[in-house]
């Protein structure tokens, strides 16, 4: 278990620490969200079982909603994903927890790795690591 930070200004590199819990976000896979997804990928979301790719956009939304504001110019350099073989369902509420797992400076660059875990109905759907180069 990490700790919640009480950062009040911009989330610069020094504000993060390994193990730091950044927050838990709920994302509902409602009709508005499905409509956007369908328009982007030219695919109607007809089934009760939705595309697992919706978990990626939900993960990113949760990641972007925590630890704000951020300095401009951060780079999303890499991504690890573990999918547990269960598609999300239409109308389901996803609970997405985000925390810092690694913080290091290499070759003059500030690297942060964030862990994200998506669950719904008591089941894990996705675990991911978002590898970033932080700007400041």
């Amino acid at each position, binding site marked *: 278990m990490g700790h919640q930070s009480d950062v009040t200004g911009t989330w610069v590199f020094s504000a993060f620490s390994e193990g730091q819990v950044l927050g838990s976000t709920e994302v509902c896979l409602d009709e508005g969200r499905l409509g956007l997804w369908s328009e982007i990928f030219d695919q109607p979301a007809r089934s009760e079982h939705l595309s*697992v790719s919706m978990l990626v956009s939900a993960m990113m939304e949760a990641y972007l909603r925590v630890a704000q504001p951020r300095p401009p110019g951060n780079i999303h350099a890499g991504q690890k994903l573990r999918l547990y073989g269960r598609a999300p369902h239409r109308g389901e509420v996803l609970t997405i927890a985000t925390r810092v797992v690694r913080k290091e400076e290499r070759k003059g660059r500030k690297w942060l790795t964030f862990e994200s875990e998506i669950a719904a109905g008591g089941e894990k759907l996705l675990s991911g690591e978002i590898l970033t180069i932080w700007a400041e």
Partner: protein
Amino acid sequence: MASDHNLPPLLTSVRIDTSATKTARYAALTADFNPIHVDPAFAEGTPFGVPINHGTLGLSLLMQAVETTLGAVPQVMDVRFSKPAPVGVALIAGGELLDTGDGYHVHVTTADGVRLIEGELRLVDQVSTRQKEPF
């Protein structure tokens, strides 16, 4: 390593033609309104010169290629975002079976073959998905 998986040699290729409209919708979907993606005036002053697609737009497409081929299977994917793509280009996701037979070399490219995202996908055994305490 021998594999029990009997997987097709290629992932079914999936493509989208990106546009400012789709980028704006993806920004709304992910709450990522970084001006590098959605503001041409801002993007003009960056090294890219024009708005670039969200990296995870291509990653989402890649997951659709996997899903179209294999379904929502348990898997581990590890990719790097190697190059940004200007808004307006086509993105094509696909992959080739690894020699080990248990996964794919995966990628997202432009229509002329520029690699934007690249990495590996491996299928894994089904494990319990019951959630313990989050973090």
